[in-house]
């Protein structure tokens, strides 16, 4: 897909002064819409809680005490900033752009999910909610939420599809050690989609006492905005690190997209930088033609699931289609509404990497750099390996390495 806004000459991208984000981009609007996508499509029971959450979040955005507390936790507990690492051997292997890895895998708990979990659990504490619930696919968000809840002394319950508890067993064990309860969800496809259904049902029932920490940039307003804001630390750091280390903004940035939280956090601070090409990589499973994939933006059409209007993998009758990806974190038929907007506006390009390509990329990165990426992140690496050779040697290509691969060793062992 052509990037409609990407019309500036290449030389403009090399300016060393930071460009202010485009003033035109101030989404979502007051009703939670990113263009035609977003909104609040939830049972009435939740509407008042969403209004309260929106109000509280808006107040805390300007609350110096809250922001200081969050910044301190991100620095001292999460271990931020994470490095922007120049992968020399991998770059040489590709023979093109300089590959820079944003090392979210080095954050505490091993993935970017902790950025949002710490933010939202702090928020829950401010809201006076003592009970935290979350959904999880690969288990990284569940682990991150259980971690943040342990840190702040709140009760935590995590919904996880039984298909995912099976393929991400180590993360279930981690959540138990962190004092969280894990509920195996047996309904539907028994993956992330169904874990979200169950978490929403819990929230509808216990809304007075409970905060639902959504882990991806999905759900009803204000979640897609809030998750994006908490994850934007990834892109803000990357921007500053690229300018400091490379003397320029990156020429292109690649991130994997399931629901899309690491990608939106990485992309958002660059949306106004027209010279920076932004590319989201979806779970291509066995390939688009096979029908067994999770490439929502590459193949879906607009629909309503989990509280927002967004692209959705669905049949002609509006029933959600089963998905497949080797990576549990990408195995989801929906996508965050802001990604749908960025797709339709042409600002971000969306493509896919297949299971096979992701597994090969995982092996390549492990062997050349000594970094074992999560299967989710390996999809971004796979696309970067295709893109880098087409780019000039002095260009910088950033890959968001959203998580580490320890959780995936059992799956990889069976497939490599």
């Amino acid at each position, binding site marked *: 897909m052509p990037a409609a806004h990407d019309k500036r000459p290449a030389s403009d991208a090399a300016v060393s002064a930071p460009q202010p984000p485009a003033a035109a981009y101030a989404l979502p609007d007051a*009703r939670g819409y990113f263009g035609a996508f977003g*909104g*609040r*499509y*939830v*049972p*009435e*029971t*939740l*509407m*008042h*809680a969403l209004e309260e959450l929106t109000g509280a979040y808006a107040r805390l955005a300007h609350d110096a005490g809250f922001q200081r507390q969050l910044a301190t936790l991100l620095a001292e507990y999460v271990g931020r900033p994470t490095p922007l690492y120049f992968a020399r051997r991998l770059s040489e292997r590709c023979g093109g752009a300089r590959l820079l890895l944003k090392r979210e895998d080095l954050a505490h708990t091993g993935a970017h999910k902790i950025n949002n979990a710490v933010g939202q659990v702090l928020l829950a504490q401010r809201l006076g909610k003592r009970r935290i619930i979350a959904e999880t696919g690969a288990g990284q968000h569940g682990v991150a939420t259980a971690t943040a809840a342990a840190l702040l002394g709140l009760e935590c319950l995590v919904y996880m599809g039984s298909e995912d508890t099976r393929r991400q067993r180590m993360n279930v064990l981690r959540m138990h050690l962190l004092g969280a309860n894990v509920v195996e969800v047996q*309904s*539907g496809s028994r993956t992330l*989609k*169904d874990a979200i*259904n169950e978490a*929403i*049902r819990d929230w*509808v*029932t*216990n*809304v*007075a006492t409970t905060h639902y920490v959504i882990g991806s940039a999905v759900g009803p307003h204000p979640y897609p905005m809030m998750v994006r804001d908490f994850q934007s630390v990834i892109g803000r750091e990357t921007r500053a690190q690229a300018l400091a280390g490379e003397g320029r903004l990156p020429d292109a940035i690649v991130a994997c997209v399931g629901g899309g939280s690491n990608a939106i956090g990485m992309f958002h601070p660059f949306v106004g930088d027209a010279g920076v090409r932004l590319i989201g990589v979806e779970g291509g499973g066995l390939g688009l033609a096979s029908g067994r994939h999770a490439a929502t933006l590459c193949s879906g059409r607009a*629909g*309503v*699931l*989990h*509280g927002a209007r967004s692209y*959705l993998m*669905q049949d*002609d*009758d*509006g*029933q*959600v289609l089963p998905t497949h990806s080797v990576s549990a974190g990408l195995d989801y038929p929906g996508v965050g509404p802001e990604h749908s907007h960025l797709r339709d506006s042409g600002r971000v390009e969306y493509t896919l990497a297949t299971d096979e390509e992701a597994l090969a990329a995982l092996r390549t990165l492990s062997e050349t750099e000594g970094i074992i990426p999560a299967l989710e992140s390996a999809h971004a690496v796979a696309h970067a390996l295709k893109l880098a050779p087409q780019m000039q040697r002095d260009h910088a290509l950033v890959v968001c390495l959203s998580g580490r691969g320890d959780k995936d060793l059992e799956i990889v062992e069976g497939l490599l």
Partner: protein
Amino acid sequence: MQPADSLGDRPAAALSETFAALRARGEMALMPFLTAGYPTRPAFLEHLRTVIDAGADLIEIGIPFCDPIADGPTIQHSSQVALENGARLRDILDDLAPLEPRVPLIAMSYLNPLIAMPRERLFERLRAAHVRGLIIPDLPADEATEWSAATREAGLCLALLAAPTSPDERLRLIGRAAAGFVYAVSLAGTTGARSELPPELPAFLRRVRAAAGLPVAVGFGISRAEQIRSLRGLADGVVVGSRLVEAIRRGEDVAALIAELKHAIRAPREGAGSARGG
């Protein structure tokens, strides 16, 4: 019972006439819920006839959806079975079209199956299937502006949900955007039979009635005759869903269940004096 032809050309009026006629008799509408296509497509149509003959005043037809976030295990299960039976919205509407139900039908569907069909065709086919109104559990008033206008224009009622967590301001918003009736959700939670209704329910129903200015149907959790008796004077209709779907699953006598619930609406309340008439 009203003859079928009185429902024909003014579908929205059919709902208010039904509520008005019942109210004049001091009765609530008994509104059973059936999952379309459950346990099979033909058996669903049989149950529909049975429920009408046994005394239902309005019927809610649940259009199955794969991700029913407002529903508890009973309706999740019936929806899944119905989908496995191939009960797509268009098939359900085809199945309903030849019927001549003498009570109004209301379709309850999550938004996504509805928007999968072009809107004009959807409304035309709903009307042809004797559907007078829509309940869309994941379409709150804030998102309903367009649907509210389009359904009115098409002569259909969009009945919005009200919840115990809705402040009065939201209840007024709901009243303005809804048509036909307001569906008051009895408790914070999903659908499913409960042995007890929340003690705050009467106060909530009074709030809805005061703010919304439309007939009020109450649903979620209602399964027993004594619960229905306790609601007399507080609501204009009662929805019985999971209890009925569960009865179908277990092979219970559906006609007897509906007759028992209908009796609870009509028979004088035992014990303390009734707060009838509000």
